């Protein structure tokens, strides 16, 4: 087999063409850096297109009482105070600017009566805050950024005669390894999916924007792309991953029929009046309001129903509790034998409003279920259940710059692949704005980092050859295991043993099984040739899924409490002691995952003071409170 390797030189290489990657690339190009964007799928098809609900930004267009401080508070509450406070602060402050900027790129959000960007309610947000376009906000976001990149390419074309002179998109290209020169990033190695040929990008700065890890789970809303590549690339390059135990299970994924299994029913169905019922027809969420939220949520159905029309004078319905609470409630109902036939619960909007209104408010939802599953949501309730949706954990980064921690330099991360911002649980809508805020920052600081370098780091020939060998191994090896079987086995381990509710015994078991899988994955083989061979591609991705799953399982075993996206049946309480601890994974020379406890950074006083003392008491230790009081 030929090992011809195409070479490209760039200043900044952005891996990932979702919201975060595109925003980073725009910023790098605007800073005058030669920029490459690399994506596993076609340009404009990254996962971001699937986001439905909206992008959270405290613009105050619908309720003028909203501002960044309220948004910051909601974000910290949602993440159960484990968020990196600085990221949450930057995010709340900068999100409105980033959204407005999109309008200058041509985005068309839904409008308020006075012509501003309309904002909608969403679980966990105190005021209507999500800028949206019907229920296809992610599509609008990605298309807008894609078109902005095209517009920059048109400027470059006018100036230089080449569209690709300053910013180029390499679509259907997968990066399998980062290359280092000492501890500096020197480039990225990968293959073109179309031809199977190898390609080497030499660049002093790399921005990771590869999204999440959900493909390691049985029921997931995530696509084949979400194999944790960025997480694994970062680990192997010497960076660290933070709080990988926190995975968000979206409470309302479809569980039936099979063609839509895992597909999400957006939260706006609940925001607009949809309610959850068990097999007895009971609206059970009222039984699951945790103490910390007692004050904000309605106690009777009547009060909850009044909220939809008069939000100022009524408390919100418990269906709008943060996602983890809803997911847990559904899980408990199902376990108690009150679930739907397919093992979920019923989400009912049909009986709550007239059909026309449903179609007008949720056009793509209605369309999707009609077309995909022949389910008419205006007539019958949906069967929904928890679905693996989002990973809060990720590459540990410096909050202001997005630079990865650990031993490596020149590596940046933004979007779902980075960790810290959302703490133990992400609020709906905070991801799209996170992509924009930190995508921009990562692009900006990657460019600034390139400026500071005296000489370009060079990737070593040996490393390149090694990367090529690893990538080719599954094709060369004969008689190994089928990658699809291995993936299914991995999904079973993660889904059954490291799923939404966790126990010590199962987690230890999972770690053992992952070790066995590791041996099997090392022996995977793919049939067929190098051209567009999905079996081969999966075989290469498996190694990433495995190491990231190991981090999740290890961290889940270590954290002996329940918080946000991590629920331990054997430790059902949230512990203020554990709130002070971040769990950080790195990779040892031997390839073993090393787990370490690190203190959570101390929140600045003026931010701390934004919260009610009585509220803080639920989250932080008594000493910590006393310490603050003393100051």
């Amino acid at each position, binding site marked *: 087999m030929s090992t011809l390797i195409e070479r490209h030189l760039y200043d900044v290489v952005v891996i990932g063409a979702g919201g975060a990657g595109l925003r980073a690339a725009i910023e790098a190009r605007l800073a005058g850096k030669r920029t490459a964007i690399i994506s596993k799928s076609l340009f404009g098809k990254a996962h971001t297109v*699937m986001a439905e609900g909206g992008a959270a930004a405290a613009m105050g267009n619908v309720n003028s009482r909203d501002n960044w401080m309220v948004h910051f508070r909601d974000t910290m509450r949602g993440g159960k105070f484990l968020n990196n406070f600085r990221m949450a602060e930057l995010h709340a402050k900068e999100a*409105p600017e980033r959204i407005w900027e999109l309008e200058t790129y041509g985005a*068309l959000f839904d409008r308020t009566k006075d012509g501003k960007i309309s904002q909608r309610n969403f679980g966990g947000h105190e005021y209507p805050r999500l800028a949206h376009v019907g229920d296809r906000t992610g599509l609008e976001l990605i298309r807008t950024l894609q078109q902005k990149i095209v517009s920059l390419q048109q400027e470059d074309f006018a100036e230089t005669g080449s569209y690709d002179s300053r910013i180029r998109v390499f679509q259907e290209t997968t990066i399998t390894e980062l290359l280092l020169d000492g501890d500096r990033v020197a480039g990225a190695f990968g293959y073109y999916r*179309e031809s199977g040929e190898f390609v080497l990008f030499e660049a002093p700065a790399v921005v990771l924007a590869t999204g999440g890890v959900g493909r390691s789970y049985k029921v997931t809303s995530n696509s084949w792309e979400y194999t944790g590549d960025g997480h694994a690339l970062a680990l192997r390059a010497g960076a660290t991953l933070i709080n990988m135990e926190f995975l968000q299970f979206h409470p309302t994924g479809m569980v039936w029929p*099979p063609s839509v299994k895992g597909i999400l029913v957006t939260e706006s169905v609940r925001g607009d009046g949809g309610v959850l019922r068990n097999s007895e027809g009971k609206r059970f969420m009222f039984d699951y309001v945790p103490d910390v939220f007692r004050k904000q949520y309605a106690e009777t159905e009547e009060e909850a129903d009044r909220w939809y029309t008069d939000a100022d004078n009524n408390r919100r319905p418990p269906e709008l509790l943060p996602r983890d609470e809803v997911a847990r409630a559904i899980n408990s109902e199902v376990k108690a034998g009150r679930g739907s036939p397919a093992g979920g619960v019923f989400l009912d909007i049909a009986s709550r409003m007239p059909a026309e209104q449903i179609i007008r408010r949720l056009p793509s939802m209605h369309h999707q279920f009609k077309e995909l599953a022949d389910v008419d949501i205006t007539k019958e309730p949906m069967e929904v259940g928890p679905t693996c949706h989002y990973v809060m954990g990720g590459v540990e980064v410096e909050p202001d710059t997005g630079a990865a921690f650990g031993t490596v330099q020149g590596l940046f991360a933004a979007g779902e692949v980075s960790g810290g911002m959302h703490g133990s649980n992400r609020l709906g809508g905070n991801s799209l704005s996170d992509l924009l805020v930190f995508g921009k920052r990562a692009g900006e600081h990657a460019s600034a980092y390139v400026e500071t370098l005296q000489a370009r780091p060079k990737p070593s020939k040996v490393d390149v050859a090694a990367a090529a060998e690893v990538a080719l191994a599954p094709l060369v090896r004969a008689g190994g295991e*089928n990658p*699809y079987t291995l993936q299914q086995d991995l999904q079973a381990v993660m889904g059954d043993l490291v799923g939404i509710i966790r126990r010590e015994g199962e987690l230890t078991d999972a770690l053992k099984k992952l070790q066995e899988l590791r041996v099997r994955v090392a022996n995977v083989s793919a049939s067929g040739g190098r051209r567009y061979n999905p079996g081969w591609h999966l075989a290469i991705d498996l190694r990433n899924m495995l190491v990231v799953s190991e981090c999740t399982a290890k961290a889940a075993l270590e954290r002996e409490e329940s918080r946000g996206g991590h629920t331990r049946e054997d430790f059902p309480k949230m512990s203020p002691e554990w709130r002070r601890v971040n769990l950080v994974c790195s990779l040892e020379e031997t390839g073993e995952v090393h787990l370490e406890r690190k203190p959570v950074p101390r929140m600045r006083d003026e931010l701390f003071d934004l919260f009610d003392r009585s509220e803080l008491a639920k989250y932080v230790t008594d000493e910590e409170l006393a310490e603050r009081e003393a100051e």
Partner: protein
Amino acid sequence: MKRHFRVWRGDASGGDLRDFDVEVNEGEVVLDIIHRLQATETPDLACRWNCKAGKCGSCSMEINGKPRLGCMTRMSTFEENETITITPIRTFPVIRDLVTDVSFNYEKARETPAFAPPPGVAPGEYRMQQIDVERSQEFRKCIECFLCQNTCHVIRDHDENKPAFSGPRYFIRAAELDMHPLDDRSDRKEYAQASQGLGFCNITKCCTEVCPEHIKITDNAIIPMKERVVDRRYDPLVWLGRKILRRDQLGSDNMAPSTTPGVAGTSGGIPSSRARRPEGAPVGPDGHMDIAELVAPLQGGLSPFGEDMTFPLPPEEVTYHHPEKDR
């Protein structure tokens, strides 16, 4: 239950339909079957997909000859004993199996002038009415599945038209910008005529019929764009009141026909098609465009192959030739 499938396998150098008997469960879509094939008999079967929810536009293919999204084609729509034939979309050069080279579309996207922000309006100061943005929003629903591009006869069997013809996907892009309340350029129509090859289009409506997003490509974008600039005065939409239209569309300064002859001479004043009179976009009594076509009695349109055609065709009659890569 096992069902019979024929799937095209091969690459640019050639290929053929292969027979498979695959287990099909209740509630599945065609893409589920492809995945089952990958996980069992043919791990290297090439096929694009991402969302499996009709949102990304990756899984375009031809199913029994009809351009469809694999993830949105329910198995229950076929007869129990029907053979299902799956081929790659045929307007673009095949790479492998069901994957084609769609770079044509990305090139055309790059040639379409981008949004021009209004000078002097700061970010955060953009003000637009919902009723005004809805017209463009309809076109922004596009998931870039390129099924319309694939089905348009101007390029489907005529590779030679490709350089001069951008295709329906990019006509709606031009229309979207034309109708954008704040776009600073006022020559979108002229550009579409002169440089996108709008004149090639003879309003067959095939593109509208295949669009999985039910965008009324012809009625709402192409026809309004085709109205010659001098006809603007008679645009039925003007009757709806000035607030839907932008200032520059009503002003007299750009009423003069473009002087560039354009590909088909349309913008030079030569009428493009007399086949049917241009229709304005349908507008409800409240002045809104009907953006959710779901309320319409008929979803999409009639079959582009005629309502009396039954599938699958006998294999002898399937003339499937993949166009040569023209570079």
